[in-house]
């Protein structure tokens, strides 16, 4: 398996094949779930430790989405999805930072496979249209023919380009970073890959933030004024 292609099932659940990336994703979801559970198990009015960190994340994302989406009820509706995107992408980007992880089955970051990033982008795609439709009703579909009906193909291409660019951006960044680290590990196994890994600590966080910001701005554009 090199280029993010299908590489066989680990086991089957009924007719559905499950490969090692899916198992890694389950492990990450379990990890995030456990951390969230223990952070909120006995909450205090004056937060300490883990609860403090989680409150900071939630307040930061919530304020940010409210500012971006103008209307608070839209932000309130979609902030959980977007925060979940952020946490999941952050954890799965960082799961590749274990040395040599790119070459071990089951330890590759799930986001370095384009099936996973395409799934995330499709969730955004449907969220955008559901948000637009639930805010504006049937009126929402008018924006596909907005300046004139002749623009319909162009508008459709634009809508389809959004998930494609989200997919390719996340996948290309993480996959490229993994390849560079794997190559450096092959050439100089000690110390040298540390520099790139330090950089990829930053890169993973930035990609998680960028995916979340772009999803939020697409939802804001669909749900906001101007339709």
């Amino acid at each position, binding site marked *: 398996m090199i280029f993010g292609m299908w590489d066989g099932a680990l086991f089957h659940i009924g007719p559905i094949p499950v490969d090692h990336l899916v198992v890694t994703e389950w492990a990450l979801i379990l990890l995030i779930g456990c951390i969230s559970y223990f952070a909120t198990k006995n909450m205090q009015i004056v937060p300490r430790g883990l609860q403090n960190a989680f409150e900071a994340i939630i307040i930061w994302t919530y304020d940010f989405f409210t500012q971006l989406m103008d209307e608070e009820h839209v932000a309130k509706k979609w902030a959980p999805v977007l925060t979940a995107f952020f946490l999941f992408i952050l954890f799965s980007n960082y799961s590749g930072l274990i040395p040599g992880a790119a070459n071990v089955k089951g330890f590759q970051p799930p986001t370095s496979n384009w099936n996973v990033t395409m799934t995330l982008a499709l969730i955004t795609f449907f969220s955008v249209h559901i948000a637009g439709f639930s805010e504006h009703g049937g009126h929402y579909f008018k924006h596909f023919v907005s300046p004139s009906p002749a623009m319909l193909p162009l508008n459709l291409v634009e809508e389809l380009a959004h998930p494609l660019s989200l997919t390719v*951006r996340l996948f*290309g960044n993480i996959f490229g970073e993994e390849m560079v680290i794997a190559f450096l590990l092959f050439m100089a196994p000690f110390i040298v890959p540390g520099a790139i890994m330090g950089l990829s600590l930053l890169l993973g966080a930035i990609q998680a933030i960028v995916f979340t*910001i772009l999803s939020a701005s697409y939802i804001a554009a669909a749900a906001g004024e101007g339709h």
Partner: protein
Amino acid sequence: MGVALGAGLAVSIAGIGGGIGMGIAGGKAFEAIARQPEVGGDVRTLLFITLAFIETLTIYGLLIAFMLVGKA
């Protein structure tokens, strides 16, 4: 040989364009923040979104390079 050259050119030419674009965008954003520090937050958000769009074009080149190398 040709495939390797093509892969190198794909990523390097894409990198030149993306680099110039990011440099201009980042420089202008810093100018704006230096001139008016109170809009720093807004400018930073817009800068991130813009850089993400620019970077996608470079990543397309990188993707083509990987495809070419994987094929050979």
